[in-house]
Structure formats: structure tokens, C-alpha cells
């Protein structure tokens, strides 16, 4: 676990229960002697650690669901002597958490929204953190015949023409934004009126489970798909090949950025720790750990070091 345990005191509830018991015992004994006992309100203090040694990361679900953060963070915790917490939500929501100053670092993959965040003067720094790629998955029967098509754009065209079921995240996550980007190349804005288009408003895992159940196509980040593949017997990768190197569509690259907040806009942000985290994340050693993550289990990395992004098609 990447965090230090601080909550294991059931004393307050037990005390409350005891007071309740005393009252009820008083009642059943039929004694009307004591004045009404009111339980004393507890302070509710959670003995939160000093804010300065807790780093809070808001991140996309894929970095958490894939297990990457749990694999990486203990090392940072060790070198910084601090606590690290992460909140895993869609990239859109993660950026919103940052916009309100409720996190110190963002690890997200939604370039357009990130650029807006920077343009709004909310970021201190933004770096390429790592990358992987998106793939189009779908039912093995492939009713829209997209297997072997070179680009996502062509594939979505075929799915639309066939009216085959398509499962969209529909949650303004980075993956959803990428999907809308591809639709935009076809001059299409998918709407809920389309009977084959399912805007789920859910995370990547939920969307893949839906696609598996409903024999639908979906755009997924390769990392999450690989991590969940065993639970998705009905699905297979139809566009994007077996590794990023086989992915022939440059539009499907999935860049993750690491963003720190501007301290002048968010005085409470833990900017010292945030800068240390970014330096650590981009350091060669950490980048090598990222590249190694998943090799043993999936035979290929789930994420690639940022520096190798230029080598992508």
C-alpha cells in the first residue's frame, strides 16, 4: 500500500454505543432518577497528518486500474518520506479537481483540456509523462468488418454505416475526447438518438464490460484492455494491432501529461512536493520502471516512457 495507515480507532463509536446502552438500561430499570443523558458530541477529528507531507494526485482511471500507480508509488514514498494519495477519476473530472485546487499534481491524458488548463493560467508546469495507445476492440464476429482497417477513422465510418453497436465512455474522459476527435474527422457528432450509439457515462472498465456483454465496439486504451482481457472473452482488438508498434494510426497515440498547479492561483497547493514528484516521475529510473511494468504479466509494457514517444508512427 502506498499510504500510511492512520485510521483504526473505533473508540468513538464504541463510546457512543456504551452511552446508548446506559440510557436504555436506565429505561428498562424503570428508574426516572437521572436527568436525561445526552451523548457528548465527538470532535470528529481524524488526526489528519500535516498537510505539508501529503501529496495528492488526481489521475485518470487507467493509471490506477492497471495497477501502475500501486507499483510505482511506494518507491516515491520511500525517497520523499511523505504520504501519497491518489484519486482515480476520468481525465475530465481529474482536471476539474485541479481547477478547484483540490489536488497537487494531475496525471491525465486529455490534450485539449490540458491545453485549456494551461492557457487559463492554472498550471505551473506540464510535461509529457508517458504514453501508450488506443485500440478499437469489438466482438470477434466483427459485424462491421473493421478488422485490418488501418485507421480508427475508417473503422468508425464502417461501424456507423453498418449501424453496429458502439459503446462510448460518454464521460468526458481522455478516451472519450479521443473518440470524439476521431468522429470529428468524419464530420460526425454522435448523439443519443442514434440507436446503435451507447454513451454510457462510465469508466473504461465498465465500458469494456458493457461492450463484452452487448457485443459492441469500443475505443479503449490498450493498457486497461490488456489488464482486463481475461474478463472480456467476447472482445478482441480489431484496429491497433498487438502492440503500439503495430498500430498504424498515429491519431491513436495516447499521451499522458503530468501537470503541477500554479501556486499563485492555488496558495494551498503543495508545490514543493509536487515538483519533487514530477522530477522523480520523469527521471530515467522511474521511466524504466514504467516501461518494465506489465512485462511479466502481459508480455508487453502497458505504458511507454515519454522520451520514446517520438519513435511512434
Amino acid at each position, binding site marked *: *500500500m*502506498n*499510504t*500510511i*495507515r*492512520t*485510521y*483504526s*480507532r*473505533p473508540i*468513538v*463509536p464504541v*463510546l*457512543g*454505543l456504551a452511552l*446508548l*446502552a446506559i*440510557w*436504555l438500561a*436506565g*429505561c*428498562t430499570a424503570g428508574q*426516572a*432518577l*437521572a*436527568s*436525561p443523558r*445526552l*451523548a*457528548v*458530541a*465527538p470532535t*470528529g*477529528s*481524524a488526526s*489528519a497528518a500535516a*498537510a505539508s507531507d501529503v501529496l*495528492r494526485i488526481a489521475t485518470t*482511471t487507467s493509471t490506477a*486500474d492497471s495497477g501502475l500507480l*500501486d507499483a510505482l508509488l511506494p518507491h516515491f514514498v520511500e525517497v520523499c518520506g511523505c504520504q501519497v*494519495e*491518489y*484519486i*482515480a*477519476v476520468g481525465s475530465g473530472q481529474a482536471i476539474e479537481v485541479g481547477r*478547484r*485546487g*483540490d489536488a497537487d499534481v494531475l496525471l491525465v491524458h486529455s490534450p485539449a483540456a490540458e491545453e485549456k488548463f494551461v492557457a487559463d493560467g492554472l498550471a505551473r508546469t506540464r510535461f509529457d509523462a508517458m504514453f501508450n495507445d488506443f485500440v478499437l476492440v469489438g466482438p470477434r464476429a466483427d459485424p462491421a468488418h473493421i478488422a485490418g482497417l488501418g485507421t480508427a477513422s475508417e473503422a468508425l465510418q464502417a461501424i456507423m454505416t453498418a449501424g453496429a453497436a458502439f459503446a462510448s465512455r460518454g464521460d468526458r474522459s481522455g478516451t472519450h475526447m479521443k473518440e470524439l476527435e476521431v468522429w470529428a474527422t468524419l464530420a460526425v457528432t454522435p448523439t443519443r438518438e442514434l440507436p446503435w450509439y451507447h454513451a454510457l457515462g*462510465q*469508466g473504461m*472498465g*465498465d465500458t*469494456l*464490460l458493457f461492450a463484452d456483454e452487448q457485443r459492441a465496439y469500443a475505443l479503449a486504451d490498450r493498457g486497461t484492455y490488456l489488464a*482486463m482481457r481475461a*474478463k*472480456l472473452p467476447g472482445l478482441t482488438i480489431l484496429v491497433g494491432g498487438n502492440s503500439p508498434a503495430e498500430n498504424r494510426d498515429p491519431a491513436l497515440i495516447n499521451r499522458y501529461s503530468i501537470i503541477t498547479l500554479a501556486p499563485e492561483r*492555488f496558495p*494551498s497547493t503543495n508545490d514543493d512536493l509536487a515538483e519533487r514528484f514530477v522530477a522523480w516521475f520523469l527521471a530515467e529510473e522511474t521511466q524504466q520502471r514504467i516501461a518494465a511494468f506489465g512485462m511479466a504479466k502481459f508480455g508487453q509494457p502497458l505504458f511507454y516512457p515519454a522520451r520514446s514517444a517520438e519513435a511512434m508512427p
Partner: protein
Amino acid sequence: MNEIFAGLIEAVRLIAGGDSELFEIIALSLRVSGIALLISTASGAPIGVALGLTRTRAHGLITALLYTGMGLPPVVVGLFVYLMLSRSGPLGWLGWLFTPNAMIVAQTIIAWPLVTGLTMTAVRAVDPALRVQVRALGATMLQELWAVVCEARIGVVAAIVAAFGGIISEVGAVMLVGGNIAGKTRVLTTAIVLNTRQGEFTLAIALGIILLALTFAANVVLLRLQGNR
């Protein structure tokens, strides 16, 4: 269907195996809901008693407000608490968002109308003749009050039980304001959502069974206190 049986076995295995992460999650669930329940009871039950004993002109309105509060959607409470406690919100200086304190605040707001409203109803249901009788026996004001509250105790405990069941099994608010942070703000319900999202149905079911067992055990304890054996 297999997942349910597998989940049952997994639940037993987790409990028997003494999985420390699981016990941490259980402890936090009990702590957050327990403190929220305590605050709601300590502040809501006396107010419920007062409301049950008095009759003012605003009574209909107060009752309607309390009953509406009982139906508050947890996720709306969560959103409200989120905006209040966010660094950009009015209470941002507390630094409570994404901590157990935020979860306690949200659950207290959910539990308070339940405890207050149901206590009021229970006290109001006490036979008015009791008060006259006790007073005739020479009881002081406090003793009279005590007698009424004791008479209503079954209803009051039912109120506490209902509120506990409502908040321990609630997910919308704690997910929003707690953030489901591993080892920090992850409780049983958010762990169930997380595992479901990742397709880990067996583990999700196991956690669900543990949650049910926990709620059952808590209710048994409360009902025993009440004297319903």
C-alpha cells in the same frame, strides 16, 4: 451465478485469512458511519424529542422538511459537501475534501433527518395520558421528560438502526467526497464499486456479503440494547 458462490467462499477466505487491507476497510466503514451516527443521534435525537413534545404552528412545515430530508439523494448531499469543502469552496480552509472527515460530514447530513424525524414520530406516538399520570405521581419536569423518552425508546432505537443502515450502505456521497483513496478513504461500498468496475465480480460480491453481515451484526447489537430479544 457462479460469482455469487465464489464470492461467498471468497468472503469466508478473506475473513479467515485476516486480510489486513480488508480489515482496514471495514474499520474505516464502521468509524465513518459510527461517528456520523453518533453526531446525528447526539444532536438529532434531543431535537426530535423536543419536536415530538411540543406543538407549534410551524409543526406541519417542520415535519414536511424532515421527511423530505429523509429522502435526500446521497449523491446530491455528496455534491453539496464537495462544493462546500473544496479548496475553492467556503469551507476549503479546513482541507477536509478527500478525507474521512468529509465522509463523516456527508453521512451526518444523510443520517440526521432520519434520526430526528423518526425520533419525533416515536415521541409523538407516546400516549399523552402517560405525562398526566407521571405528573400526578409527583414527577418533576425532567422526570416526566425522561419517562416519555423511555416509553418511546423502541422507536428511537429504530430511528438509529434505520439511519445506520442508510449510511453504512451508502456509496454516492462517500465516493464523491472521499475519493475512494486506498488505505485512506476506501470503505466497503466504494471498494465494491471499484471491484465491479474492474470486473472483479467475485471480490465485489465477497465485500457485499461482508457488508451485509456487518449491518446485520450492528442491528442485532442495537436491537438487543433495545430489549427485543
